[in-house]
């Protein structure tokens, strides 16, 4: 084996690192627009899914433009904040801030029958990683119109079931206020929710921690909108 001097080794390492760094940053810059586009489409698909509109990767942008007619950002008193685009608000960053400074996005969907649905983003911790979703309310700001949940790495077949239809469908028609004043959110009950319980759905057998995390996520994210919900109830 050849003997290499220390100088050679240093120069070799430096040249190698510079070449690799140049190559990777060039690739990252070239691919960034494509990646951002994918993330944007996914977000739009999720928002559409929460107002029960199915979309594909191809038509998501068009459908979003058609159905999501308004979006704005609130502070925790339910007042609109000017100068911020709701779509650009990253919930992950907002949840890192103190509660008083958080920006709360709302998307307003106009359905085919001209009634409105109000979409709130959700984010929380699951068993293995983050879980997130969107939930939409009818204009009474109480009854759930639709919901969609997703996760990064919940257990397949157990916690991961939160992203499936059988879990999400029962949320439709549930209410988040008791006697129209007390905020109760929606409970995810182990052993099954009673048929006539308006504030609870069935948990996933074997996915207890994910189910409980989802319940906590609903509660902690929606409670921030409480002032807004109360001020903006439409008959």
């Amino acid at each position: 084996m050849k003997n290499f001097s220390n100088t050679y080794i240093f120069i070799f390492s430096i040249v190698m690192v510079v070449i690799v760094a140049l190559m990777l940053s060039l690739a990252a810059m070239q691919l960034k627009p494509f990646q951002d586009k994918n993330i944007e489409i996914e977000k739009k698909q999720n928002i559409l899914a929460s107002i029960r509109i199915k979309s594909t990767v191809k038509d998501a942008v068009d459908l979003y433009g058609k159905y999501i007619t308004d979006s704005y950002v609130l502070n925790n008193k339910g007042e609109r904040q000017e100068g911020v685009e709701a779509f650009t608000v990253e919930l992950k960053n907002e949840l890192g801030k103190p509660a008083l400074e958080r920006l709360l996005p709302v998307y307003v969907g106009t359905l085919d029958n001209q009634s409105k649905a109000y979409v709130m983003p959700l984010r929380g911790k699951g068993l293995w990683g983050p879980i997130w979703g969107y939930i939409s309310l009818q204009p009474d700001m109480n009854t759930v119109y639709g919901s969609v949940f997703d996760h990064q790495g919940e257990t397949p077949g157990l916690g991961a079931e939160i992203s499936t239809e059988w879990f999400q469908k029962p949320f439709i028609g549930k209410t988040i206020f008791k006697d129209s004043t007390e905020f109760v959110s929606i409970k995810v009950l182990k052993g099954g929710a009673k048929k006539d319980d308006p504030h609870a759905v069935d948990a996933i057998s074997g996915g207890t921690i994910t189910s409980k995390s989802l319940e906590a996520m609903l509660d902690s994210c929606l409670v921030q909108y409480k002032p807004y919900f109360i001020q903006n109830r439409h008959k």
Partner: protein
Amino acid sequence: MSIISSKNFKLLANPLNLENPVTVQILGICSALAVTTKLKPAIVMGLSVIVVTAFSNLAISAMRQYIPPRIRIIVQLVVVASMVILVDQLLRAFVYDVSKQLSVYVGLIITNCIIMGRLEAFAMGNKPWPSFMDGIGNGIGYSIILIVVAFIRELFGSGAILGFQVVPQSFYDAGYINNGMMIMPTMALVLVGVIIWIQRSFNKELIEKE
């Protein structure tokens, strides 16, 4: 020397069976368990590993005369890591849904023993072209196992192949249910075990002497 001489062909074909990285060398089991619930991510993972093994073998072999032995592992790591990052970025840009399913496992290709193993054992001592062949061979050997396992798991676990429902609705109406066990990583390990068993019963030379 022709492009694919018999020696080079051996480099390509041996890892498919007698030197299979997963079933004989028992490398790369971790990702083989994790990404095989559905066929599509398994295929993409297989392709990614083929690309990474082939091109990092090629790159390391091309500069093997110039790599100082004292820092060769670091050099290998840098080459593999940059290949993997490139592949990851490309997946994120062009097959976003699959890259989400593969999640961390693309990044973990870096630590896949197959790649470092082949660099150290083969590419450091052989010419670029045979090394490239060796990389592709090992990548394919890995992919075949992934695809077989994923095929069985998706068929019995979800009743589908590549996302298309193949088990007809009438089966479900008659009481057939998907096997939830198939979705768990445990079954992947059992399946890999069964594949090793079948392979050894056909290739007696693989069975260890007492």
